[in-house]
């Protein structure tokens, strides 16, 4: 990882204010994306992974949301403090996003060709007719059969997998440096999921585009990512190279997650679930947020927030007992 970072998010904090409660959706998250690499942000629902992505894309709805701290350096500029007008010129051109629900994310009343062409037109790339031509070519590139005819079709005329291809076409239209994919295959079947993931991998390889992949699926992380950031309760609790992290986790949460995944096992053998419930983001536990569910928790975990430790080259973990966990075998 000698490369200069493409996107560096530091200490990001996002809150949602509802009534008397303040929900700390993102609570000091750090992660870095490198050129040409794929970073997976892994987390369960409520971990703050999606909110982080939307915040970086400046899509957070304010109110009820509010950015209460942190920076996101992209090409040397803090994009969170950039004036909106300036950001609009960058958004979609330098950094693009693909969402989970492609049907809802495409405008139902415009043709897919129009929607892709709009990307070219608003960034002043080319004329209307040329934009349409390029839209057709793009649809062809993402593997839509009879693409040139289908530019005139509306989103509801496509199947789930095809819609996600349209979304990808739209996102990569201007060859962005960074693509944020927010659970792009969660709603899709495994066979289609494999196709879409391959497509993203291909395009990334082809154009040197970096990808931030938001997912809750360990398998997908292994499949496509170079580095991974594991999120829990709004913080990145562990980060590093995918194979290292998932083979030798240094945070109890990652370890517990791997252990709770149903693998091929003998019948009658029970899974090892993570005890307890996900944290209440409006009322986070003291010290380490994970301590009530953690098998390694000691007194210090209840009192003190853990420091960020480096357990190996390029590996960080936010745990008082990171070293102990790091030497724990995944499957006991």
């Amino acid at each position, binding site marked *: 990882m000698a490369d200069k970072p493409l996107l560096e998010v530091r200490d990001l904090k996002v809150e949602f204010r509802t009534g008397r409660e303040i929900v700390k959706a993102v609570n000091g998250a750090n992660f870095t994306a490198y050129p040409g690499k794929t970073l997976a942000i892994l987390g369960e629902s409520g971990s703050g992974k999606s909110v982080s992505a*939307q915040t970086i*894309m*400046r*899509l957070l*709805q304010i109110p009820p949301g509010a950015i209460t701290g942190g920076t996101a350096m992209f090409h040397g500029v803090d994009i969170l403090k950039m004036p*909106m*007008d300036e950001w*609009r*010129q*960058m*958004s*979609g*051109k330098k950094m*693009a*996003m693909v*969402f989970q*629900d492609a049907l*809802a*994310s*495409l*405008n*139902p*009343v*415009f043709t897919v060709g129009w929607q892709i062409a*709009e*990307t070219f037109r*608003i*960034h002043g790339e080319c004329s209307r007719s040329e934009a349409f031509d390029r839209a057709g070519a793009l649809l062809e590139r993402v593997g839509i059969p009879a693409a040139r005819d289908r530019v005139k079709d*509306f989103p*509801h*005329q496509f199947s789930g997998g095809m819609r996600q291809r349209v*979304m990808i076409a*739209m*996102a990569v239209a201007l060859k962005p440096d960074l693509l944020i994919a927010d659970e792009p295959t969660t709603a899709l079947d495994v066979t289609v999921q494999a196709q879409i993931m391959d497509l993203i991998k291909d395009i990334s390889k082809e154009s040197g585009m970096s990808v931030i992949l938001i997912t809750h699926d360990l398998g997908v992380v292994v499949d496509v990512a170079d580095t991974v950031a594991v999120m829990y309760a709004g913080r990145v609790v562990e980060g590093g190279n995918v194979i290292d992290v998932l083979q030798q986790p240094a945070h109890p949460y990652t370890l517990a997650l791997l252990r709770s995944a149903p693998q091929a096992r003998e019948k009658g053998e029970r899974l090892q679930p993570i005890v307890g419930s996900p944290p209440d983001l409006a009322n986070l536990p003291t010290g380490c947020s994970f301590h009530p569910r953690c098998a390694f928790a000691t007194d210090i975990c209840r009192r003190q927030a853990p420091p960020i430790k480096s357990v190996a080259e390029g590996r960080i973990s936010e745990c008082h007992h990171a070293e102990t966990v790091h030497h724990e075998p995944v499957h006991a």
Partner: protein
Amino acid sequence: MLHSSIALIGLIVAVFFLARLTGDPTNLYLPIDANLETRQEFAKLHGFDQPSHVQFVKFVKGIAEGDLGFSIRKQRPAFDIVLEAYPTTLKLAFTTMTLVITFAVTVGALAAYKPRGVFDRVASISSLSTASAPDFWVAITGILIFSVALRWLPTSGMGDGIEYWIMPVTVLMLRPFGLQVQVVRASMLGALSSAYVKTARAKGVRERRVIYVHALRNALLTIVTVAGDQTVGMINGAVIVETVFGWPGIGKLMVDSVIQRDYAIVQAAITITASAIFLLFIIIDLLYVALDPRIRHR
């Protein structure tokens, strides 16, 4: 389309049988002061002594031929009288609806852009107020202030000058405007918080374009539906406004005929209005298909 044609048929049947429900239809057709001889003669002339189904066939046939009865008060075919009244109402309704939609979309979209902002609060309260204002009361209060006290506008009547139009149009606008602002605001809010708007923003589409192209285009579906209902409801407003301002439109004609018990005109007016509404529904359906590709391909 189907439902409006069924409604049309249902209405014609209802009009026919309502007249018979109340007893002897001659009571309805003739002025209250008509003597017995006239009544009998009239009943015979119009076949009211015949069985109902024969009368019904005759009635429907009459409609098909454009014969909607004869106004005894005015001594003219009811059809002609109603047709003469229509342009006034149509002009009034058209002007009003154009203004309602223009203003409501502007105000509603701006209110939705910053929900709970200052503009939104002002817009909400004023739209709720206009939607709650009794139109007849606003009309006479308006006359009191602008015509009687200030002498800026004419008290009533229809003329060529714009001063004749200001008050009737304003009064007629009040409730549809108030309602439409809320509808536009709500559907714009819905559209603006949708995932496709997020996509548009992520593409780098500017806020103005997000609102007026991406969101508004979707919100239009609801706006058109409500505008259609309101255009039908214009008749309601026209009844009051035309009566208060003395405009010779269909609303005033109908109220006058009811009070004068000129049944032929009432019947003709209902039939023609129902047909007009039928036509309107067809237009709305077509508009809907044009606006929503999902309906087009179903």
